[in-house]
């Protein structure tokens, strides 16, 4: 498949309760179309839930979120785009359950770490006009 002809699916979703499931359900259909494993499909869904919730919660914007899925023979590329305030993705602390339990820390802060663990590549481009998260899942041919 050449770059020009890669099929893509695009979603624009408003910030409403549980609307991240639109992204997840779309990913499920695309994963089946691409014949990804159930395991890969679950990992994509979980990463996408976290990415979409972050765009909803932390963008501090009322603007709709865009999610783009680009299908190619060997991988799925997903972009989650918000038009919010942005953040420094390098500065995010790695969460640790032991200190969350012992030191009575804030219990949250797992999303970015989960996304990184679950996907094959993760890249944040963020500035004060918003954040674009690009993540990919490779198709493993067993």
């Amino acid at each position, binding site marked *: 498949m050449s770059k020009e002809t890669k099929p893509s699916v695009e979603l624009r979703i408003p910030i409403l309760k*549980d609307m*991240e*499931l639109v992204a*997840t359900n779309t990913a499920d259909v695309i994963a089946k179309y691409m014949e990804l494993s*159930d*395991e890969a499909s*679950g*990992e994509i*869904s*979980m990463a996408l*839930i*976290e990415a979409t*919730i972050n765009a909803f919660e932390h963008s501090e914007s009322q603007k709709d979120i865009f999610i783009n899925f680009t299908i190619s023979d060997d991988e799925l590329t997903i972009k989650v785009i918000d038009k919010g305030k942005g953040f420094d993705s390098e500065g995010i602390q790695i*969460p*640790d*359950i*032991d200190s*969350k*339990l012992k030191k*009575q820390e804030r*219990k*949250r*802060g*797992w*999303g970015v*770490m*989960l996304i990184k*663990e*679950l996907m094959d590549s993760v890249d944040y481009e963020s500035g004060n006009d918003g954040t674009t998260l690009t993540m990919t899942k490779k198709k493993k041919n067993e």
Partner: protein
Amino acid sequence: MSKIISTEEHNNFLIVKTEGYFNKDLGELVISLVEENVKENKYHFILDLEQSKIVNSIGASILIEVIEILQEKDGSLSLCHMAPIIEKTFSIMGLTKYCNTFKSLEEAVAQ
């Protein structure tokens, strides 16, 4: 959509079955239920996730609060019927180190 579908006492355990997306709302329903029962000196809980195939990290972080509450009382949280992606998520977070995990409810009850 997301809800607690049943709570049932068995042996020393309170078995809590949920349905639907394990999000913030469902997490808060579960922690309230735990808090109420702790007041009545019930400290051992089994969460049956058979009908909850999907979680988010906000729901999961509320389970960390549940663990914290139960640790103070030498109680326990057991999880069963986790979908593979939920098990993977909880394991990445390290949450499963602080829970007992079982394939089936029968095994959880027999622990």
